[in-house]
């Protein structure tokens, strides 16, 4: 019988695990495959003849209760055992991310930390968005008025509602704050920048930055 010839190699495969439990020599081809006691589905007198490759492979995966091939497809059962580990990994990753949210400090190499820096009170200070402490226009050495056409810059100093940001949010000193506000009014007055929201191209770009899908050259 063709099925019998299929079974025998599988039985040989299975043999090494029974090596230490039985006293029989390892090379006697045994037709009795290791069966579990709670096998209700297989009622045949000679288990080897009724065993399908599916059920044998199930045993290899350690899923002896799923012996009925019609009930569950082989593919899904093996996949579930394989994806079990992946699922676990994803769960752990999610857990890690959730816990790391509680310590949002962006550690840089060379920073010094004391036990106080790891306390929740200090960790809270690093959460959220803060107003800048230094004047970015001074750092860059640009003239805001010459950049009225620079939509990223104009949108940066605008709230999502299209209002000009206060200097306590921009961190600019009064001279630069006035110049920046004038540049924004100029861009809006010329009709090249929206007045009630940020520039759509900038929003699109920022959206990509937030998802990490920027495809820049």
């Amino acid at each position: 019988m063709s099925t019998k010839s299929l079974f025998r190699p599988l039985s040989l495969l299975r043999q090494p695990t029974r090596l230490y439990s039985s006293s029989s020599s390892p090379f006697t081809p045994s037709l009795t495959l290791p069966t579990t006691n709670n096998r209700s589905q297989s009622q045949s007198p000679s288990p080897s003849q009724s065993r399908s490759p599916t059920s044998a492979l199930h045993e290899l995966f350690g899923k002896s209760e799923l012996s009925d091939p019609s009930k569950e497809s082989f593919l899904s059962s093996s996949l579930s055992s394989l994806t079990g580990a992946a699922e676990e990994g994803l769960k752990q990753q999610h857990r890690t991310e959730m816990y790391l949210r509680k310590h949002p400090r962006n550690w840089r190499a060379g920073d010094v930390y004391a036990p106080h820096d790891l306390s929740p009170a200090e960790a809270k200070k690093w959460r959220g968005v803060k107003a800048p402490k230094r004047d970015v226009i001074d750092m860059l050495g640009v003239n805001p008025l010459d950049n009225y056409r620079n939509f990223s810059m104009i949108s940066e100093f605008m709230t999502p509602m299209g209002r000009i940001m206060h200097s306590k949010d921009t961190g600019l000193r009064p001279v630069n704050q006035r110049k920046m506000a004038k540049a924004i009014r100029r861009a809006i007055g010329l009709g090249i920048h929206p007045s009630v929201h940020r520039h759509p191209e900038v929003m699109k770009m920022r959206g990509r930055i937030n998802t990490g899908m920027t495809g820049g050259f």
Partner: protein
Amino acid sequence: MASRSVSPGGALLRASRMFSMPAPLPPPAQDAAQATFRSHSDTATTAYPTHQVITTFSHARKEGDWGLKRPLPLRSTTKSSTPMLRIKAIDTIEQITDYASGADHGLSLLKFQELGLPIVTPPPRGAEHRAEAAVGIRSVFEDDIDCTDVAPKDRPKLVDRRWRFSGPWLAGMSPGDFKKYLAEKVRPRRHEFRAFLMTKIVRDLNEARRERALNRGETWDESDEITAETVPGEIVSEFLRGVRQQNATLFKLVGEFLDLAPLKRPSELDITSLANSFRYQADVAHDTRNPYAENGPPSTHPSAGLSYIRTNGYMDNHPVYGPQKERKPVEARVLKPRTNQNYYAKLGIAGFVSETLSGDNIHNQKSAKSPLRQFDPDLKGGAKIYVHPSLASVDSAGKLLILVRDFVDPEAELVARELIGDGEGLFGQQQRQPVEEELSQETLRRKYSQKVSQGAEDYGISFGKVDN
């Protein structure tokens, strides 16, 4: 100067701790990140201390005597096991002494000195996370790069060896700072620069004339030399027009005049330099060998006074097992595991933040169980791993960067654990805290909905079931 006689009171004051405290340093230079909307904190420990940290004897501490103008309150100064304070003001208008704990920097220094690492020149840019970071770097105390006392006339000659420059490092300046520097410091010195160029041109001319005269066999006298007065001023303008296209010569002259820190040619890995490599080869005649040209010169001595060890070529001697092949590994705290956002895990060694190395090593394996990949809240005291720190360097911002080796010798780790009596952790497992029941509304409700007293059972009196 004749020595002035000092009164006894004056002598006492001069020798006192109060008068020997140095002036506070300016605070650490703020990151460019401080100009953005990213979070920052005022109370976070700074990269280096700005005030002197003082300590006192235990018998004086319990009386509040720290050698200052007045005794300090006992409740806040006697409870710690580390008596370290930093004095922000010896006396204020409110007649108090402004002090704070200095144990954060004080203990970090002691812990770092326990590591016994040598301080070396900074690794080349781009190689900080690779195992090749140690190539080409040397101890900062090598004679040829540790030049502290340089006479002004010798400065241009030693530009490849010095670490202190009075001019800025142009590559590290932001555009706004550069424009400000040009307007305030450079522009007023134009005449001075022309005079400087004139002396150089006159000297070169004299050299050329002397050479020609000697070649022709004529005698050359000091009186035959030309001086700056006889030479017309247009020569300088002509020279400047000619040298305008030669970046290397121009930078040499300007750098000498302004005492600028040397700049390094961009590395060959830079794409733009590859494209313009033809032009670069024409321009850059001299590439400096200064080890600080790539990342900027340090603001203090390159060692920052943290460690005076010159090499890590020494062996540890174990009292029982004898000389050890590897030095003792150190327990590092995993501050942030590797995630999609940060490629390198952040480790805390002796209070300093360091990063793991890239490449195929044990820190970068994909096994999910490693504390470098995932966060486990049940680990007692937080996730910690053993690492071998190898070298340390101080960057131009004053931060100490500790280079970690990419492997840990398992034997060395066991020996280190045994030394501290970590018998339970001998097989590489950190103790886990017992899992506490999650506190949620449900569990609390369940806990408190049970009756406080069960009745007779609470008193140890149990009746049999009554059949009714």
